[in-house]
């Protein structure tokens, strides 16, 4: 392949919108995505699924085909099933595709690696039958599998969305066990005036809540002491509600308390991050165009900070405009003229965000779990272990990793990283910024030694 002007990692809304915008402006774009079909998580497999299950999944999902359609552009090479495992200065992007390792070189790179569901380590969360709401959605989107006798636990709009999707698919959840409190709702009210500028989101939320009420699905709000029990499979969820202990038997638990930026690729390049208190997560330091402190590396979409699909799309376009200007396809004036309507739309898209972040904060008991709760599933490390390592002098996650292997398993800390930082920060009294994060190293995703050993440079070869 000819050396592209821009390599994009991830074909979700940010990556697809950036690819299209850049291609329209004459840049040669290569977009690498680990899924077999474009769409990212939000529009997962949308080209195939929209015609068969579009009704149950809703219009916000089928909208994704508008973005996937635009990938069919002469200037775009879309490499699906391509797992990026290393990015080095230069930029050399190493990936594997169909069991073969290869590398692409480009001067500009856009990381659009999306979000991860915030893990919800509460007692019993590793039992079979317990999964994230997002995993439940993948089953529904890709395979049409609807869980029976399921309970939803956590907080946030995604819980309501999946409840409604389950209702439309004909299998109502048994209950919603929600962890946000009355105090959270009251605190959120001061953000309501601004949120009204993003009123379509609020209307959608109210509609979802009305549908859940009509279906008679009980909602328990302000719950505490949530735990899951079962012998070799989930059997029940227990919680405190209005001062009383309650138990609900179930076969499936979907958990969700927000999503966090997937920063592994950015971290591997040493890009600076800072702690976002409202989102309780690290976000990369970026300028208004998504340019990081590593010249040539851009980040857009949820991997730059949680904003949702439409925000991701807008930032993807802005990034493409900036790169087009840097490579001489646009003057600064042209760039700004094209950017201005996108920036206006962004302020509407982001209007509801402070309200939502405040109304649906993460479940505190899962941010700093009890001592016996596993926090690193790969290596079976508990919250108590991390507290012990802190007493042994660990000031940050890398020392804790050396002592207890948290973050050394196949996920490389993607799931336990924020929990470990939060636990150490709480114990030492340091800020999360001072505490820091895991040093991320290749491979960003597991890859076989054979694929790596057979690595060849394919800059002069067509990838198709």
């Amino acid at each position, binding site marked *: 392949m000819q050396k592209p002007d821009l390599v994009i990692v991830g074909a979700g809304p940010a990556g697809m919108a950036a690819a299209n915008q850049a291609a329209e402006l004459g840049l040669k774009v290569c977009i690498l995505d680990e899924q077999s079909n474009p769409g990212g998580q939000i529009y997962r497999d949308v080209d195939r699924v929209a015609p068969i299950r579009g009704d149950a999944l809703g219009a916000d999902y089928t909208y994704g085909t508008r973005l996937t359609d635009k990938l069919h552009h002469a200037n775009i090479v879309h490499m699906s099933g391509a797992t990026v495992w*290393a990015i080095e200065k230069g930029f050399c992007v190493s990936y594997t595709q169909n069991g073969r390792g290869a590398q692409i070189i480009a001067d500009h790179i856009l990381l659009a690696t999306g979000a991860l569901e915030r893990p919800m380590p509460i007692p019993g969360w590793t039992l079979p039958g317990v999964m994230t709401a997002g995993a439940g959605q993948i089953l529904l989107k890709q395979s049409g599998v609807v869980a029976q006798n399921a309970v939803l636990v956590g907080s946030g709009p995604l819980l309501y969305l999946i409840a409604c999707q389950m209702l439309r698919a004909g299998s109502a959840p048994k209950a919603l066990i929600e962890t946000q409190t009355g105090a959270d709702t009251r605190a959120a009210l001061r953000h309501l005036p601004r949120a009204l500028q993003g009123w379509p989101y609020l209307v959608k939320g109210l509609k979802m809540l009305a549908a859940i009420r009509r279906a008679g699905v009980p909602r328990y709000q302000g719950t505490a002491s949530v735990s899951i029990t079962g012998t070799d499979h989930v059997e029940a969820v227990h919680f405190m509600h209005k001062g009383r202990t309650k138990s609900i038997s179930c076969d499936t638990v979907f958990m969700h308390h927000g999503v966090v930026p997937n920063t592994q690729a950015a971290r591997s390049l040493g890009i600076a991050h800072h702690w976002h208190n409202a989102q309780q997560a690290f976000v990369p330091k970026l300028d208004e165009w998504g340019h990081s402190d590593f010249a040539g590396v851009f980040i857009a979409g949820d991997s730059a900070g949680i904003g949702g699909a439409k925000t991701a799309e807008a930032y993807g376009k802005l990034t493409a405009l900036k790169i087009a200007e840097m490579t001489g396809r646009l003057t600064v004036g042209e760039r700004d003229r094209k950017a201005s309507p996108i920036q206006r739309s962004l302020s509407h898209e982001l209007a509801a965000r402070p309200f939502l972040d405040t109304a649906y904060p993460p479940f505190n008991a899962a941010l700093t779990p009890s001592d016996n709760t596993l926090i690193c599933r790969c290596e079976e490390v508990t919250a108590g272990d991390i507290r012990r390592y802190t007493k042994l002098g660990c000031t940050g996650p890398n020392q804790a990793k050396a002592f207890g292997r948290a973050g050394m398993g196949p996920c490389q800390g993607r799931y336990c990283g924020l929990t470990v930082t939060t636990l150490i920060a709480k114990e030492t009294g340091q800020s999360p910024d001072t505490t820091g994060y895991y040093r991320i190293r290749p491979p960003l995703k597991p890859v076989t*030694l054979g694929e790596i050993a057979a690595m060849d440079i394919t800059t002069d070869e067509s990838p198709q």
Partner: protein
Amino acid sequence: MESDYVIIGGGVVGLSVAWGLLRRGRSVTVIDGDDGSFRASRGNFGLVWVQSKGMKQPQYARWSQTSAAMWADFAAELGDNTGHTVPLEQKGGYDLHFSEETLHATIDTYETLKTQLDGNYPYDVLGHNALRKEEPHIGPKVVGAILHHQDGHANPLKLLMALATDVRKMGGQVLTGQTVVDVAKPDTFRVTCKDGLTLCADKVVLSAGLGAMQLGPRMGFKAPIRPQRGQVLITEKLPKLINRPSLIARQVDEGGIQIGATNEEVGMDDRVTQPAVSALAGEAIAAYPALARAQLVRSWGALRVLSPDGLPIYQESADMPGAYLVTCHSGITLAAAHARLLPDWLERADIAPNLEVFSENRFDFS
């Protein structure tokens, strides 16, 4: 704060020495860096290794043999004291060869060393077939191996944690997240940290790894050390595939295959690079073809702490008597000697080992 010893550097070397001093009833304060410090103790390969060491200085081979021989007892004591087992296996290790020429050239040098060591250098040469009986997964490209019976491997992170635990249990003060900015000796030693904290001690041990490059000269040492990058890989956990370790690969006690290591002169750069990762993967597959299907889960770069001849440096400062430089690149192999024997040298005991060949005098130009 005042103690008999201040130890600058809380890695395996510093903690081993601290542990030995505490066992002798000395009061010790260890000053350690932060989460982002270069840490050879966190990035090393975990071999407890004798072969190929000291080819030009038999005393170094002896020192390594002495430490390797004390390791099992040392690990057991740490395990008993702390409840943290330090996994160790000492049933020999290989130097694998892909050509007859390199195999025979190595045997020649081992024979010379064996004579210098009065015959105490127990090794066997295994041809391909003999090797395959020991290692059923060995690949056809491996023509043979030297099996050295004094070699083995340990879990270096468990060693680090056991030392960190036991040093505290024995009353050692460990201050983490600190950077030493000055060491002075107006009467007793005064060690000043970046945040203004000052510690007083009768003696100071500088075991700060590459940190000694800056601090060493200010304490009267030559400290001619440099970083050398080693990149290392580790796979997913696998069923038993490799029985004995080699410099190419070893199966760690948790099941992963650790693959090492590059030797790169790139300064203070501990990044991982694709060409090195590919080359390491290729060599490991040549040795054990089944590894081609193994998933790589992690790689890292770490910086060796190397002297010009690769040997340790044990030196008392002429400018500041009572200050000692202790540095080496084989902190795991030498941990037992550092814990059990080096304190005698620091305490100037009659039974102290003679470490003259490891002094900085060897770097004098004459």
